[in-house]
């Protein structure tokens, strides 16, 4: 293992989690843990999961060892469940003030989820993977399917709200964008992980999910540090010529 690679691997594994510790602290200080309780729990859970994985890794159980694998799988399962909760949280934040639109969005999202689940099941059947480790293949296929569903739901949320001219609060947008970046690269990462790669390529591929997670954490931090709406800073627009139409617009029909 080249020196630079070892450095990059450890850096990309440790740095995002070290930075992630700051996220719940900032959320607590800004009272955002009340608006985004699931995301708040997720950041704490991810930090704890990292500590457990790191402990299993450094205690002599490398990535291929039994304990590390089980810790990894259990942590990934909890993390996946929490991510669904966060998507629901983003949905609630975006449509909270528009109950009429919320009903339509809920129905559309249910249909979309059904379609994405179907697509995920079909693609799982058509891609069995070429790794000798069946458990790892199963986990990767499952993770990829779930990530496809999550990325699809996030894209739907972005497009649907844009279609109706709804602007997102900065924090909500930042959280969603961070997850969207991570989910997109995860799809590629899980897929490539199922193929028979050379050892060199596999080493490089290991940097992709941790690298994209690093970007996501930076996005969350960026929006938390500088993205909030200033209290009382809302715009007040006037349309200068609208009074000229008052006769036309005010006419009852």
């Amino acid at each position: 293992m080249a020196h630079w690679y070892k450095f990059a691997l450890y850096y990309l594994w440790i740095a995002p989690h070290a930075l992630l510790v700051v996220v719940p602290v900032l959320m607590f200080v800004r009272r955002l843990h009340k608006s985004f309780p699931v995301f708040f729990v997720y950041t704490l859970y991810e930090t704890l999961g990292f500590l457990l994985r790191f402990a299993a890794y450094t205690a002599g159980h490398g990535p291929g060892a039994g304990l590390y694998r089980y810790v990894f799988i259990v942590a990934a399962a909890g993390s996946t469940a929490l991510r669904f909760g966060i998507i629901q949280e983003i949905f609630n934040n975006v449509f909270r003030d528009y109950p009429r639109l919320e009903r339509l969005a809920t129905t559309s999202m249910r249909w979309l989820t059904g379609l994405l689940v179907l697509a995920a099941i079909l693609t799982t059947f058509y891609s069995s993977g070429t790794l000798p480790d069946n458990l790892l293949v199963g986990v990767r296929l499952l993770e990829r399917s779930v990530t496809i569903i999550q990325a699809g739901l996030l894209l739907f949320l972005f497009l649907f709200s844009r279609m109706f001219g709804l602007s997102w609060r900065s924090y909500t947008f930042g959280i969603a964008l961070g997850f969207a970046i991570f989910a997109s690269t995860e799809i590629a990462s899980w897929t490539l992980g199922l193929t028979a790669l050379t050892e060199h390529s596999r080493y490089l591929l290991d940097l992709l999910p941790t690298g994209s997670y690093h970007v996501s954490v930076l996005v969350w931090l960026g929006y938390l540090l500088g993205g909030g709406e200033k209290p009382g800073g809302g715009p007040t627009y006037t349309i200068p010529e609208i009074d000229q139409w008052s006769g036309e617009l005010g006419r009852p029909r």
Partner: protein
Amino acid sequence: MTTTLLFVLVAFVLLLSFAYLATRRTKDLPDVDQALTAIRALDIEAFRNLVDPEEEAFLRARLPVPEFKKIKRERARAAFAYVRALSSVSLQFARFGDAARRSPDPVIAASGKQIADSAIYLRLRTLDAGAQLMLSALFPSLDPHRLRALLQQYDQATYLLLKHNVLTRAHSRAA
């Protein structure tokens, strides 16, 4: 290998889409000039005539069937262009209302919420009307489409915008 390539491509397209949406976010602010131009360009009376069921019944009674079908298709296509313009106006209204909703002044904020609500409903109505008009163009012998609700929604949205403008000016004067 094809499946692998497909998934990697999907991942790449998703990443690009999210990056595009993130960069568009700051550019999607309410464009008052664009809304004004769109509203000015709308001849709402002409649109009312185009979708008037009575006028359609009159044409149906007077014209031979092939002629009526041809004219109905043309009318549906013209009305569809109006609906698209209305849809664009509703989006501008929604953005305007959504921005005003965050005003520190509770009266202005409440008015902004009303505008955004009304504009969203108008947009829903335009989507519904667009589908109806496309059906009309495809099957001219179907019953006339009733778009009264869409027109009423447009009137309500523009009325709320007018009211909002009066409110904003009164508040600026008071300040």
